[in-house]
Protein backbone atom coordinates (compact mmCIF):
# COMPACT_ATOMS: atom_id res chain seq x y z
CA UNK A 1 0.00 0.00 0.00
CA UNK A 2 2.92 2.33 0.47
CA UNK A 3 3.93 4.33 -2.58
CA UNK A 4 7.58 5.10 -3.18
CA UNK A 5 9.13 6.65 -0.06
CA UNK A 6 10.48 10.20 -0.23
CA UNK A 7 13.95 10.84 1.14
CA UNK A 8 15.93 14.06 1.26
CA UNK A 9 19.69 13.64 1.55
CA UNK A 10 22.20 16.26 0.38
CA UNK A 11 24.04 15.17 -2.80
CA UNK A 12 27.40 16.37 -1.49
CA UNK A 13 29.05 17.05 1.85
CA UNK A 14 32.53 17.60 3.24
CA UNK A 15 34.24 14.88 5.24
CA UNK A 16 33.10 14.79 8.86
CA UNK A 17 30.07 16.99 8.19
CA UNK A 18 26.82 16.33 10.05
CA UNK A 19 23.96 16.35 7.54
CA UNK A 20 20.19 16.40 8.08
CA UNK A 21 18.11 13.63 6.52
CA UNK A 22 14.33 13.74 6.09
CA UNK A 23 12.14 10.79 5.10
CA UNK A 24 8.44 10.39 4.44
CA UNK A 25 6.45 7.33 3.44
CA UNK A 26 2.80 6.94 2.50
CA UNK A 27 1.05 4.73 5.07
CA UNK A 28 -2.27 4.87 6.98
CA UNK A 29 -0.65 3.85 10.28
CA UNK A 30 -3.89 2.16 11.39
CA UNK A 31 -3.47 2.45 15.14
CA UNK A 32 -5.53 -0.55 16.27
CA UNK A 33 -7.61 1.84 18.41
CA UNK A 34 -10.31 2.69 15.91
CA UNK A 35 -13.63 0.96 15.28
CA UNK A 36 -15.34 0.53 11.94
CA UNK A 37 -18.95 1.52 11.20
CA UNK A 38 -20.23 -1.73 12.74
CA UNK A 39 -18.32 -1.18 15.96
CA UNK A 40 -15.62 -3.79 15.29
CA UNK A 41 -12.04 -2.95 16.18
CA UNK A 42 -9.92 -2.29 13.08
CA UNK A 43 -6.73 -4.34 13.54
CA UNK A 44 -3.47 -2.46 13.93
CA UNK A 45 -1.37 -2.13 10.80
CA UNK A 46 1.53 0.26 11.05
CA UNK A 47 5.12 0.68 10.01
CA UNK A 48 6.77 -0.49 13.22
CA UNK A 49 10.44 -0.01 12.38
CA UNK A 50 12.55 2.43 10.40
CA UNK A 51 16.31 2.06 9.92
CA UNK A 52 18.99 4.11 8.22
CA UNK A 53 22.38 2.61 7.31
CA UNK A 54 25.41 4.13 5.63
CA UNK A 55 27.70 1.78 3.69
CA UNK A 56 26.23 -1.07 5.74
CA UNK A 57 26.77 0.50 9.18
CA UNK A 58 23.79 1.54 11.37
CA UNK A 59 23.19 5.31 11.58
CA UNK A 60 19.76 5.71 13.15
CA UNK A 61 16.64 3.67 13.78
CA UNK A 62 13.17 4.14 15.23
CA UNK A 63 10.72 1.70 16.85
CA UNK A 64 7.27 3.07 16.15
CA UNK A 65 3.90 2.55 17.82
CA UNK A 66 0.34 3.40 16.81
CA UNK A 67 0.73 6.99 18.03
CA UNK A 68 2.89 7.92 15.04
CA UNK A 69 0.81 9.91 12.52
CA UNK A 70 -0.21 8.60 9.13
CA UNK A 71 2.45 9.04 6.45
CA UNK A 72 5.27 8.72 9.00
CA UNK A 73 7.91 11.43 8.89
CA UNK A 74 11.43 11.02 10.28
CA UNK A 75 14.08 13.67 10.52
CA UNK A 76 17.55 12.90 11.95
CA UNK A 77 21.22 13.56 11.31
CA UNK A 78 24.20 11.59 10.04
CA UNK A 79 27.93 12.19 10.20
CA UNK A 80 29.54 11.39 6.86
CA UNK A 81 33.27 10.66 6.64
CA UNK A 82 33.34 9.16 3.13
CA UNK A 83 31.29 8.92 -0.05
CA UNK A 84 28.75 6.14 -0.13
CA UNK A 85 25.18 4.97 0.00
CA UNK A 86 22.45 5.46 2.54
CA UNK A 87 19.95 2.65 2.77
CA UNK A 88 16.57 3.31 4.36
CA UNK A 89 14.20 0.52 5.39
CA UNK A 90 10.61 0.60 6.63
CA UNK A 91 9.05 -2.57 8.10
CA UNK A 92 5.25 -2.99 7.97
CA UNK A 93 3.23 -5.02 10.51
CA UNK A 94 2.15 -7.23 7.62
CA UNK A 95 5.77 -8.21 6.96
CA UNK A 96 6.27 -5.98 3.91
CA UNK A 97 9.61 -4.20 3.74
CA UNK A 98 10.02 -0.95 1.81
CA UNK A 99 13.49 0.24 0.87
CA UNK A 100 15.13 3.24 -0.68
CA UNK A 101 18.73 4.33 -1.22
CA UNK A 102 20.55 7.63 -1.68
CA UNK A 103 24.08 8.37 -2.79
CA UNK A 104 26.25 11.08 -1.31
CA UNK A 105 29.61 12.36 -2.57
CA UNK A 106 31.94 13.40 0.23
CA UNK A 107 34.99 15.52 -0.49
Amino acid sequence: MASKPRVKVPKTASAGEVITIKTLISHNMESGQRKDKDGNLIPRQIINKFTAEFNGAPVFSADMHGAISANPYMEFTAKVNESGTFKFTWVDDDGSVYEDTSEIAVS
Partner: protein
Amino acid sequence: MNMNRRQAMAMSAGAVVFAATGLATTGALASAEDVDKAMMELAGGKMPEAGKVSLTAPEIAENGNTVPISVEVDSAMADGDMVESITIYADGNPNPDVVTFHFTALSGTAMAATRMRLAKTQNVVAVAKMADGSTFVDKKEVKVTIGGCGG
Protein backbone atom coordinates in the same frame (compact mmCIF):
# COMPACT_ATOMS: atom_id res chain seq x y z
CA MET B 1 -29.76 16.87 37.55
CA ASN B 2 -32.96 18.02 35.94
CA MET B 3 -32.62 19.21 32.42
CA ASN B 4 -35.28 20.97 30.48
CA ARG B 5 -35.64 20.23 26.80
CA ARG B 6 -33.65 23.26 25.77
CA GLN B 7 -30.63 22.21 27.80
CA ALA B 8 -30.96 18.68 26.50
CA MET B 9 -31.02 19.97 22.95
CA ALA B 10 -28.00 22.20 23.47
CA MET B 11 -26.08 19.38 25.11
CA SER B 12 -26.84 16.90 22.39
CA ALA B 13 -25.70 19.49 19.84
CA GLY B 14 -22.40 19.68 21.70
CA ALA B 15 -22.18 15.92 21.92
CA VAL B 16 -22.63 15.52 18.18
CA VAL B 17 -19.86 17.98 17.45
CA PHE B 18 -17.60 16.33 20.00
CA ALA B 19 -18.24 12.84 18.63
CA ALA B 20 -17.41 14.06 15.16
CA THR B 21 -14.12 15.61 16.18
CA GLY B 22 -12.75 13.37 18.92
CA LEU B 23 -10.11 10.86 17.95
CA ALA B 24 -12.13 7.67 17.81
CA THR B 25 -10.56 5.52 20.47
CA THR B 26 -11.67 2.55 22.48
CA GLY B 27 -10.99 1.47 26.03
CA ALA B 28 -9.08 3.24 28.75
CA LEU B 29 -6.45 5.91 28.31
CA ALA B 30 -2.97 5.76 29.81
CA SER B 31 -2.13 7.80 32.91
CA ALA B 32 0.88 9.66 34.25
CA GLU B 33 1.47 6.64 36.51
CA ASP B 34 1.73 4.32 33.50
CA VAL B 35 4.38 6.57 31.99
CA ASP B 36 6.24 6.81 35.32
CA LYS B 37 6.27 3.02 35.48
CA ALA B 38 7.59 2.72 31.93
CA MET B 39 10.27 5.35 32.64
CA MET B 40 11.38 3.55 35.82
CA GLU B 41 11.74 0.36 33.85
CA LEU B 42 13.74 2.10 31.14
CA ALA B 43 15.94 3.81 33.75
CA GLY B 44 16.61 0.60 35.66
CA GLY B 45 14.41 1.14 38.69
CA LYS B 46 14.83 4.84 39.37
CA MET B 47 13.27 7.98 37.92
CA PRO B 48 15.27 9.75 35.20
CA GLU B 49 16.73 13.14 36.14
CA ALA B 50 15.51 16.34 34.55
CA GLY B 51 17.92 18.00 32.13
CA LYS B 52 20.19 17.32 29.14
CA VAL B 53 17.35 16.23 26.85
CA SER B 54 15.07 18.86 25.36
CA LEU B 55 11.69 18.17 23.82
CA THR B 56 10.06 20.64 21.45
CA ALA B 57 6.30 20.36 20.98
CA PRO B 58 3.59 22.92 20.25
CA GLU B 59 1.81 24.41 23.24
CA ILE B 60 -1.44 24.07 21.33
CA ALA B 61 -1.98 21.50 18.59
CA GLU B 62 -4.57 22.42 15.98
CA ASN B 63 -5.35 18.79 15.47
CA GLY B 64 -4.31 15.88 17.65
CA ASN B 65 -3.82 13.65 14.63
CA THR B 66 -0.63 15.32 13.44
CA VAL B 67 1.49 16.97 16.11
CA PRO B 68 5.09 17.77 15.15
CA ILE B 69 7.65 17.01 17.86
CA SER B 70 11.43 17.05 18.00
CA VAL B 71 13.96 15.96 20.62
CA GLU B 72 17.61 16.69 21.08
CA VAL B 73 20.37 15.92 23.58
CA ASP B 74 23.41 18.12 23.70
CA SER B 75 26.07 15.44 23.25
CA ALA B 76 29.42 15.02 21.50
CA MET B 77 28.19 11.61 20.24
CA ALA B 78 31.72 10.25 20.61
CA ASP B 79 33.58 8.07 23.13
CA GLY B 80 32.38 8.64 26.66
CA ASP B 81 29.54 10.96 25.66
CA MET B 82 27.04 8.92 23.68
CA VAL B 83 23.27 8.95 23.63
CA GLU B 84 21.91 5.48 23.05
CA SER B 85 18.24 6.25 22.65
CA ILE B 86 15.42 8.69 23.23
CA THR B 87 11.98 7.27 24.01
CA ILE B 88 8.79 9.30 23.70
CA TYR B 89 5.68 8.65 25.79
CA ALA B 90 2.25 10.27 25.84
CA ASP B 91 0.46 9.98 29.18
CA GLY B 92 -3.09 10.46 27.90
CA ASN B 93 -3.12 8.21 24.85
CA PRO B 94 -4.69 4.73 24.79
CA ASN B 95 -1.14 3.35 24.63
CA PRO B 96 1.55 5.55 26.22
CA ASP B 97 4.30 4.27 23.86
CA VAL B 98 5.01 6.54 20.91
CA VAL B 99 8.48 5.91 19.51
CA THR B 100 12.07 5.09 20.46
CA PHE B 101 14.89 6.63 18.46
CA HIS B 102 18.21 4.74 18.50
CA PHE B 103 21.42 6.61 17.81
CA THR B 104 24.96 5.55 16.87
CA ALA B 105 28.30 7.32 16.51
CA LEU B 106 27.36 7.81 12.84
CA SER B 107 24.27 9.79 13.89
CA GLY B 108 26.54 12.78 14.48
CA THR B 109 23.99 14.37 16.82
CA ALA B 110 21.25 12.99 19.06
CA MET B 111 18.36 14.74 17.30
CA ALA B 112 15.16 13.39 15.82
CA ALA B 113 11.83 14.82 14.69
CA THR B 114 8.55 13.17 13.76
CA ARG B 115 4.77 13.72 13.89
CA MET B 116 2.55 12.07 16.45
CA ARG B 117 -1.05 11.54 17.52
CA LEU B 118 -2.51 12.85 20.77
CA ALA B 119 -5.97 11.69 21.85
CA LYS B 120 -6.50 14.72 24.12
CA THR B 121 -4.60 17.42 26.03
CA GLN B 122 -1.76 15.64 27.84
CA ASN B 123 1.95 15.48 28.60
CA VAL B 124 4.48 14.32 26.06
CA VAL B 125 7.54 12.89 27.79
CA ALA B 126 11.01 12.30 26.33
CA VAL B 127 13.52 10.05 28.11
CA ALA B 128 17.12 9.96 26.91
CA LYS B 129 19.30 6.99 27.77
CA MET B 130 23.06 7.50 27.72
CA ALA B 131 25.65 4.83 26.91
CA ASP B 132 26.71 4.87 30.59
CA GLY B 133 23.15 3.94 31.63
CA SER B 134 22.16 7.33 33.04
CA THR B 135 18.75 8.67 31.99
CA PHE B 136 17.29 12.15 31.58
CA VAL B 137 13.77 13.39 31.06
CA ASP B 138 11.90 16.37 29.63
CA LYS B 139 8.16 16.90 29.55
CA LYS B 140 5.82 19.25 27.66
CA GLU B 141 2.09 19.65 27.97
CA VAL B 142 0.34 19.87 24.61
CA LYS B 143 -3.19 21.22 24.52
CA VAL B 144 -5.28 19.48 21.89
CA THR B 145 -8.11 21.65 20.65
CA ILE B 146 -11.57 20.58 19.64
CA GLY B 147 -12.55 22.14 16.36
CA GLY B 148 -15.70 24.14 15.95
CA CYS B 149 -17.23 22.16 13.13
CA GLY B 150 -15.45 18.91 12.69
CA GLY B 151 -12.20 20.75 13.33
